[in-house]
Structures are given as structure tokens and as C-alpha cells.
């Protein structure tokens, strides 16, 4: 006897639900173990390792950012770093607005501005910048044209370089949040930053963000520069660094502030692009999924990517259940308390328990990052938005995956500047 569609659906729903709960519990436990082991090291001051300051080239890829580029360049030019050891290269990727003209205004302060005839994406712009950097340059810093760096950012980057270091991810934080969506992203950026820092101790950093990162020029040349076909070249370059056995680090003291999407649509577009880029990079570097790359194979390559899948599975499972099972409260008229009593089960209790654990945990991570960036710690006023973040964000990630699938089917390809 063949099972009916209802049975199959209930079976799938149950399977997805238990799969996601087990996976989420394990991921949560793993992050907790790593956190407990390494968090005291996160707060330590980053020690200086160099004797002489190297020559640094800051490369700014630019596309349609006439509003922000002025602030970006001003922040670099006022950075606390010897001027004779610093050059700034702006590569305008055929902007349609006045970005190029705005950048040109900075030529009198020594900024080199290159204009490309054809728009070919951020990776190409960065590669052009690297090719045009001074022969003296040992360190390349890339920073998005919508980000500004703190005055000691360059110094804090260079002091972490040694012969084994290929790249250093900067402490990319968000500019002052005005809306709830921006606030959510502020928390997310800080938490991710903290997690990346503890992943550094396990050589598992999966990305050197475009918001600001530093690279050894030699390492960049050895790995062949940025991949121009990737939607997330900032992740692909980190993968290549791991492949070539370079260390990838995080500096919590090299701080930059970036502009985040202001509308939900733009936010979703950005995240869809990140995931699609992630898929591409993982296919391109599938051989990194080997135990010879140690923890990176499991953490940076796999965990960083799959943690949204169980959330997505749980949501799908509940949607299936809702289509099959009707709401008790409305039809069976058994009252709110009774409905609540029967819907709450041990998995929901466990989720509530984990929620409180994660809530405390996320607040701690954000505070550590804020202390490092000399920003104000979480106040009581912020608690509602932090609670909201912890409740809403998993669902947001849960709906991004289906969007990625739809997008891949409907219209492959992308344009940059999707924030």
C-alpha cells in the first residue's frame, strides 16, 4: 500500500523539523564550546609584531557612490600613518553619476584616480588597483567606497602581519543606525565580527570583507588576485588564502564603518547575492572540503554556510504542518490557554531555553566588540530591539534561502552596487 500525500507531507514535515532541531542544537553547542574556550583571548589587546612600518596601498573600488566617496577618501587621508608610506588608489568602474569627478577632487592630495571604460565589477576594479600600486607596497588595504576607516585602522592592520599572514579582515561595523532594520544589521555585524575572531584561533575565517580588509601584496600575487566571476570576491579571496596555506586573521582594532541597506528589499537583494556568491565560491573551491585543511573545512567552509539551512528547514516544516493541520484555537474553540498548553512541547521548551542562552550570549558578543571600538555598550533602552533581533533574524535568514533558489532559477547573473 502506497502512502497518501498527507502521510508523505507529515513525514517530510516531521523529518525536517527533527533534522533542523538536532542540527541547530549541535551547531549551537559547537559555537558555545568554541566561545567558552576562546572568548577570553578576544578581549586581549592585539600586540604589535613589526619593527618598521611597511608601505601601504589603499585600493578603493568605486561605482556610483558620489555621496559617500568623499567621506571614504577623507578618512583614509586623515589616517594615523606616515604619508610617505601610504598611497591611495581609486578605481572608478565606469560610474554613471559624479563619483569619478568627486574622487578626482582628491588628486591634489596625492590620490591616484583610475577610470575604467567599461563596468566590470568590484573584483576587476580591485585587481586594477593592485596592479597599479607602487612597487614599494607590501600591504594592500581594500575598502568599499561607502565605508570609512578609523584613524588608527591602518596601523592596527600592519602590526598584525607576519610572514605567514596572507590577509586580515577588518572590524567592519555599521554606520549609525537610524531605522530598526539598520539596528538589526548593526547587531548582526558585531556578532559576526566576534564569531570571526574566535574562528581565527581555529584558522577558520571564511571572508575578508569588502568593507575593509588588508592583504599581503605577495600573497595576493601568489593566489592570483580577486576572482572576477564571483559575486562575493571578498570571500573567494579568503578561500584562496586558505588554499595556499596563508593565515587569515581578524583585527578587532582596525575598525571601519560601512553603509548597510536601508530598505528591506535592498537588504534581501544583498543577502541573496551573498548566498549565491557563497555557493559559487564553494563549488569553485570544493577541494577545500578536505580534512587536510583542518578546522577550516568544517567551520569556515561548511558551518558558516549551512547554519541557515536548519532554520529554513524548520520554517518549511511548520508551513507544511499548518497546511495540513488546522488551527485549534479558531475551529475547535478550546481556548487560548488550552491551545498554548498543547502546542508547547519539549522542543519548543528547549528552543525557549536556547533563546535565553543566545540572548545573553549575543549581548555579550556585541558588548565586547563595542568595547574594542570604544563605543557605548548595550543599554536598557536597546533591549527591546535586541530581543526583536534574536526573534526575527533567524526567520529572515530562513526566507533568504528560498529567495536564492527562486533568483537562481529566474535570473542568473548580478550587478554590483546592490545595497
Amino acid at each position, binding site marked *: 500500500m502506497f502512502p497518501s500525500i498527507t502521510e508523505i507531507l507529515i513525514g517530510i514535515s516531521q523529518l525536517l523539523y527533527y533534522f533542523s532541531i538536532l542540527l541547530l*542544537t549541535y551547531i549551537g553547542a559547537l559555537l558555545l564550546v568554541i566561545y567558552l574556550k576562546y572568548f577570553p583571548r578576544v578581549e586581549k589587546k592585539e600586540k604589535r609584531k613589526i619593527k618598521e612600518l611597511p608601505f601601504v596601498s589603499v585600493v578603493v573600488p568605486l561605482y556610483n557612490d558620489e555621496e559617500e566617496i568623499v567621506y571614504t577618501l577623507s578618512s583614509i587621508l586623515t589616517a594615523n600613518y606616515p604619508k610617505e608610506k601610504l598611497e591611495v588608489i581609486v578605481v572608478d568602474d565606469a560610474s554613471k553619476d559624479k563619483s569619478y569627478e568627486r574622487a578626482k577632487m582628491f588628486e591634489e592630495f596625492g590620490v591616484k584616480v583610475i577610470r575604467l571604460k567599461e563596468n566590470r565589477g568590484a573584483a576587476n576594479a580591485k585587481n586594477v588597483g593592485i596592479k597599479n600600486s607602487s612597487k614599494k607596497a607590501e600591504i594592500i588595504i581594500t575598502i568599499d567606497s561607502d565605508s570609512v576607516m578609523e584613524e588608527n585602522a591602518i596601523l592596527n592592520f600592519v602590526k598584525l602581519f607576519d610572514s605567514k599572514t596572507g590577509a586580515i579582515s577588518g572590524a567592519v561595523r555599521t554606520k549609525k543606525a537610524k531605522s530598526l532594520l539598520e539596528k538589526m544589521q548593526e547587531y548582526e555585524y558585531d556578532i559576526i565580527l566576534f564569531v570571526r575572531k574566535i574562528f581565527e584561533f581555529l584558522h577558520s575565517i571564511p571572508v575578508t570583507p569588502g568593507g575593509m580588509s588588508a592583504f599581503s601584496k605577495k600573497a595576493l600575487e601568489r593566489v592570483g588576485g580577486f576572482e572576477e566571476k564571483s559575486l562575493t570576491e571578498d570571500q573567494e579571496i579568503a578561500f584562496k588564502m586558505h588554499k595556499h596555506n*596563508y593565515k587569515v586573521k581578524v583585527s578587532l582594532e582596525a575598525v571601519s564603518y560601512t553603509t548597510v541597506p536601508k530598505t528591506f528589499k535592498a537588504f534581501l537583494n544583498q543577502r541573496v547575492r551573498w548566498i549565491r556568491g557563497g555557493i559559487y565560491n564553494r563549488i569553485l573551491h570544493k577541494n577545500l572540503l578536505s580534512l587536510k585543511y583542518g*578546522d577550516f573545512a568544517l567551520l569556515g567552509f561548511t558551518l558558516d554556510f549551512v547554519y541557515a539551512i536548519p532554520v529554513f528547514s524548520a520554517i518549511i516544516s511548520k508551513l507544511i504542518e499548518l497546511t495540513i493541520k488546522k488551527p485549534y484555537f479558531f475551529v475547535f474553540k478550546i481556548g487560548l490557554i488550552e491551545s498554548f498548553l498543547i502546542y508547547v*512541547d519539549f522542543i519548543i521548551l528547549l528552543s525557549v531555553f536556547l533563546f535565553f542562552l543566545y540572548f545573553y550570549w549575543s549581548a555579550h558578543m556585541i558588548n565586547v566588540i563595542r568595547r574594542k571600538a570604544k563605543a557605548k555598550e548595550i543599554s536598557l533602552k536597546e533591549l527591546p530591539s535586541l530581543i526583536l533581533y534574536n526573534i526575527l533574524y533567524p526567520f529572515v535568514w530562513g526566507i533568504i534561502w528560498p529567495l536564492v533558489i527562486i533568483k537562481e532559477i529566474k535570473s542568473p547573473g548580478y550587478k554590483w552596487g546592490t545595497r
Partner: protein
Amino acid sequence: MKNEEKTKKRKAKRKLSTGLYKLAFFYAVLLLIIGFTLGVVYDSFISKGMEDEINKIIELSTTSEILYASGEEFCTIFPRTMKEIEEQTWKLGVMIDELESKNRIGEDLKLKYFDLQVRDFFLVKKASKECRINPLIIMYFYTNNLVECEECYEQGFELAIARNSLLEKVPIKIYAFEGKTSHSVVNYFKEKYNISSYPSLVFIYLEDGEERWLKEEGLINSNQILEKALTFQNASS
């Protein structure tokens, strides 16, 4: 040679921190045990609450039986009590059904609930004759095994919709029994009404002062239930 040394020098050490993954597994199991223990405690708390509720309804039912035996004011008080009992047993029934489908309550509680329903069924039948209340009685036989009864969930839902409409119009009593139970009286009902498949509904009503019943096998929707219920009710009155 010099190049090889240089490459070695810049190589980062890659290793798998097996201990961390094992410890995480231990923590995950611990978390699941904590969650499971919380769940067991919570479920026993719900079971206890429902058992207390069943006992309260049984007390109410016993009081009605005493009143019936003494013959005093029974017909004045019972219609009100009957409505109260109906509402309470319905709620309990829905909860027991849902919790049972997830294996969250024991067999004892379900049997106790069937006891309550059986007791109420006989009391209502006595009251029907004595007080001429003539409620429409619907017996619903189901099973929680989806393979055996694909339509049982749907039938419960249709019954709930019909009940919501009927409550305002006619006095109604719905008794839901799990077909695979070991409860002796429920098994007697199954024999009496010839229940062999699920879902099955049995409408019990009075016609010309005689008790009659009609069995419906397979899924019937709320409109069909309503139609039959109103027809039987007219016949009774």
C-alpha cells in the same frame, strides 16, 4: 632548497580540533536531555491538570446521578449541567487527541476520559427519557493511526465546524472514541453499532419516542453533518 624552506616558514598549521567537536556533541546531548526532561515534567504537569479536570466533571456527573436517583429537581438542573459537561469534555477531548497523537500522554488518562464519556452518555440517555431533552447524540469513532485512517483528522475538523453551528440551534452531545482502545464499554459500542472502519459517525436520535441510530462510514463534511443533525432533531421533536 631555500624556496622550500621559505614556503614551509609561511605555512599556517592546519589541524582538526577533534576534542572540540566531541565536546560539542556532549553538550548537544546534554542540551537535548535538559529539553527532554523539561518536556517530561511539563507533560506530566499537563496530564495532572487534565486528570483533575476529568475528576471535577465526574463529580458533576455523580451529583447529577444522585439527583436523578432522588428524583428531586433533576430535570430543572440537568439541562444546564449537561451543557457545562459538554463544553468541558469537548475541550479535554481535543487536548487528549492532540497530545495522544504526539505520544505525550499515557493510556490511563485516555481510558479515564473514555470512562467519563461513557458515564455521561448513559446519564444523558436516562435524562432524555425522563426530562424530554432529546439532545442529538453523535458518536465519533476514530483512530490516530494515519495509515489506517487517513481521513480521521479531517473528520475531526468537520465535526468541530458542525458542532460550532449546532451549539446555537440544538442541544448536542458529541462523544469521540478511539477505535483501537481496550476500553470494554467502547468495544461494546463498536459491536452494537457495527463499527468496522474509520472514521465512522453514529447519529442517535428519537423518533416517535423510540431510540434510533444511523451509522455513516467514511468522511462526511460539516454541511452533511448539519443537514442530518437538523433532520433527526426535527424527527425527535
